[in-house]
């Protein structure tokens, strides 16, 4: 019923849009009509981890290209703009017969969507995009505060996050004293998101997110959000996701960025019904949170720390082809970030994990990373 209502709403809005939209005849200045804005980003990573030493590890120790992205964006016409972001990254697969890890290169659209703000108060989006679920899911790798995504996001939303083809409407709610945005999305349900990989092509994913940001003062803000997603999974049963996020941010009004402080936390819970043709099992229950802080102690240096906890129960491998490991993981991270300029930065990070046993039977893992981040082309956006 929710799917039908969402589709009807989208068809109604697009009908009204096409029927009554009048083009804006003002010329666009300062933009080449032939060339879109182009930028590229490259992440280079040196990794040294306990698990990276094992012959079957697909996260190998040493130097690697973590990911590169090429982005094109421009106005299409007075009604819409187009964003295309291509990702180029290595993909590793373990071949048990030869006991080797094989590398391949993947080029894929990280996001490719059209955007329209033509109707006051609403942003429509159509294409492939990162779903508006929580805060971290929207980030591209080069914008991550740490080298990797939180474990909870990686395990419950997938390695690429909740990212699929679909349609979206984001409404700026008419509150005067604070920012409040409600987003509803419908995704195809056939992407890489294994938690929603229904075999029925008519099954999609409904996503909703409510974001609120308040200015506690000119330099201090609080953001609070809630997310929900629901869809069918590969077992012809339901998967539900809930999420909550809270962020406090202090940015001084004078003296540059020195003294800026961010405190953030995010929680995701997933409930996955599990069954086959004859038997129903207990629902798989996965939940976790991450809390992190970033302090800018000089104009170019910042210190970051993160604490994460993630646990899975009742995941049943007999029936669930995407079963997770029933265990608990705790992860602590400490990082230093150096912004040489707005276009290049370097990160040094140490992680300590206690989780499911590795090849050597041990539960503890130490990780060290050194990451270099370079951007060329159009000026990076100052996201908040």
């Amino acid at each position, binding site marked *: 019923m929710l799917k039908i209502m969402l589709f009807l709403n989208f068809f109604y809005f697009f009908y009204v849009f096409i029927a009554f939209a009048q083009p804006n005849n003002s010329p*666009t*200045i300062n933009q080449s009509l032939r060339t879109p804005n182009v930028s590229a980003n490259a992440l280079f990573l040196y990794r040294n981890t306990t698990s990276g030493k094992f012959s079957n590890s697909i996260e190998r120790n040493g130097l690697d290209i973590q990911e590169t992205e090429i982005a094109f964006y421009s106005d299409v016409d007075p009604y819409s703009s187009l964003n295309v972001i291509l990702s180029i990254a290595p993909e590793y697969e373990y071949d048990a017969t030869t006991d080797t890890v094989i590398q391949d290169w993947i080029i894929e659209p990280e996001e490719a969507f059209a*955007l329209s*703000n033509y109707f006051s108060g609403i942003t429509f989006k159509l294409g492939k995009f990162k779903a508006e679920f929580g805060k971290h899911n929207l980030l591209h790798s080069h914008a991550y505060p740490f080298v990797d995504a939180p474990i909870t996001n990686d395990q419950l939303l997938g390695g690429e996050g909740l990212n699929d083809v679909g349609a979206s409407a984001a409404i700026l709610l008419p509150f005067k004293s604070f920012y409040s945005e409600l987003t509803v999305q419908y995704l195809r349900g056939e992407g890489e998101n294994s938690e929603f990989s229904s075999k029925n092509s008519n099954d999609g994913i409904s996503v909703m997110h409510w974001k609120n*940001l308040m200015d506690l003062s000119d330099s201090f803000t609080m953001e609070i959000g809630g997310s929900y997603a629901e869809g069918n999974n590969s077992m012809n049963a339901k998967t539900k996701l809930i999420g909550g996020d809270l962020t406090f941010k202090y940015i001084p009004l004078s003296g*540059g960025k020195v003294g800026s402080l961010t405190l953030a936390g995010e929680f995701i819970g997933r409930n996955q019904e599990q069954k086959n043709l004859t038997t129903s099992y207990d629902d798989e229950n996965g939940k976790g949170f991450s809390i992190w802080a970033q302090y800018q102690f000089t104009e170019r240096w910042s210190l970051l720390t993160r604490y994460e906890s993630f646990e899975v129960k009742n995941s049943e491998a007999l029936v669930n082809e995407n079963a997770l490991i029933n265990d608990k993981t705790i992860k602590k991270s400490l990082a230093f970030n150096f912004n040489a300029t*707005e276009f290049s930065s370097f990160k040094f990070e140490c992680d300590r994990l206690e989780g499911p046993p590795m090849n050597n039977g041990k539960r503890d893992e130490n990780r060290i990373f050194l990451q270099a981040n370079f951007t060329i082309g159009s000026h990076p956006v100052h996201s*908040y």
Partner: protein
Amino acid sequence: MKSLLFFYSFVFLIYSNFLFAKINLVTTTTDLAAIVIAIGKNNVEVMSIAKGTQDPHQVSAKPSFMIKLRDAQLVIAQGLELEDAWIIPLIDGSRNPKIKKGTSGYLELGSLLNPIDVASTQVSRSNGDVHPNGNPHFQLDPIRLGQAAIIIGERLGQIDPNLKDFYQQNAKKFQEEMSVKWNEWKKRLVATGIKEIITYHKTLNYFCTSFGIICQLQLEPKPGIPPTISHSLELIKQIKDKKIHLVLIENYFDRDSAGKIKESIPDMRISPVPVSVGGEAEISDNFILIEKIVQLFEMKK
């Protein structure tokens, strides 16, 4: 009778809301907001996104600004890529199509004011965070401020034709007053005998060009790159050769960034300088801002 009175009062209230409605504007900087207030007086409601104490290159696209932009009829920006990294996502997030860049609801002044420091050769990011189409910091040139006021006055007149003459008269008055003050400031600056200064960034280049002062040397080796020891040593050599006696550091940069220079030349005058309206508590308009800078030149120590 009572209900009729109530009805007419209600109609009058609604009518007067439209009749006396203020133009809702957002500017990127406090300097532009100050010009708007000087021209529009009580007929405009204006908010600046950047504060006078902030580096306009580094403003974050805080979502709460989108609320202000949602209701704005006009956005005025300095332009020349000064604000692109934050004003464009803010406008997109406001979902207000009337103020999108390229529409009549978005006014970018820099390119209309005969910008200086336009790149004459191909530039890349190896030159630092450059503005290839010109220096955007025109807010310290009284003559260009006057020209900006005329442009703003015309745009306000297009939005609110009933008060077109009012806005244009005020804009003309602003320009004339700036022209008169320019003459006074010029005489006072010549009297100081200061012919060349050093600044942190190229923020004072328009001020210097307008008043015939040389501002070729900056503490930052390239735009957006903090001062280095080697560059500071090179500057010290040039200071001694050219007999430069004044270093002005825009007050949102690190005041200790000229430390190496102060060590080598103890009697060098190094002073923070406000470069935007609101940059210090008492700087409430463009005239007071430029007066404050002129006074810094006049100070002996």
